[in-house]
């Protein structure tokens, strides 16, 4: 059984919309062991985001414990617990819920569920990220 501070290793997978206008690399992410989401490692976004569609999927499975409404911005933030990446236990994930035009395919569908921002991958609990540039295998190493 992996411990929360074990290294997390996985391969990024390529996602592309049918008309080949958009491409993304995705991380295999599981919430509560009952929902699998494709999340893009977004190396230029400060915060993590899931789409309203992904939010509804999680809500259907009763995986949304707490919503925080920001009255000024009108945005909703949720904290997702029991997160796994590539089947390994990962820290809780705070996400904003909003449409992400950058993730839309050419016909208006979301082919991925959102993105992991720098707050999670870079400035959060992971002190080291190792990427094999040939295989796209990523190893996230938590602070110990």
């Amino acid at each position, binding site marked *: 059984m992996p411990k929360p501070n074990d290294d997390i*290793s*996985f*391969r*990024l*997978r*390529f996602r*592309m919309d*049918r008309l*080949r206008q958009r*491409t*993304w*690399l995705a991380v*295999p992410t*599981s919430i509560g*062991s*009952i*929902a*699998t989401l*494709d999340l893009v*490692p*977004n*190396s*230029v976004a400060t915060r993590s985001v899931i789409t309203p*569609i992904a939010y*509804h*999927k999680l809500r*259907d*499975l009763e995986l949304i414990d707490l919503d925080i409404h920001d009255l000024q911005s009108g945005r909703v933030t949720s904290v997702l617990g029991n997160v796994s*990446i*590539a*089947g*390994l236990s990962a820290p809780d994930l705070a996400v904003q819920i909003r449409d992400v035009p950058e993730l839309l395919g050419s016909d208006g*569908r*979301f*082919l991925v569920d959102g993105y992991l921002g*720098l707050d999670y991958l*870079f*400035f959060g609990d992971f002190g080291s*990220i190792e*990427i094999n*540039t040939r295989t*796209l*295998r990523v190893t996230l190493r938590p602070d110990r």
Partner: protein
Amino acid sequence: MMDTLHNPAAATAATKDGKTGTFTIDEIIEHYHGEWILMRVTEDDEDGWPLRGYLLDVAPTQEEILQAWTRRAPEVSDGKGWPLYTFLAEPLITSGPEYETAVREFFMGLLQAGGLRDAEAE
């Protein structure tokens, strides 16, 4: 086993009574290319991606497959730990110009992020 793969309704019914087998993602993509898929994942591959599972529904639109997700959501409380997963059945791409471009953009972003982190540390 392949009979139910050609017939989602049969697959759904068979899944309910446990008489069907599971299918790999590759099998599903081959048979339902371009369709939206809802499945319960029973096995991941060594890279952490869904590999195999029960085919629950097939639909031409994302909206319809999300309706199926809502309908089937109560089933995951059976304690088996098989997550629901939706995806568009398209062959995996592991090379080519689009792939190279996406990888390049990802690494360029990482370099920028590294700069941000260094700045924050100073």
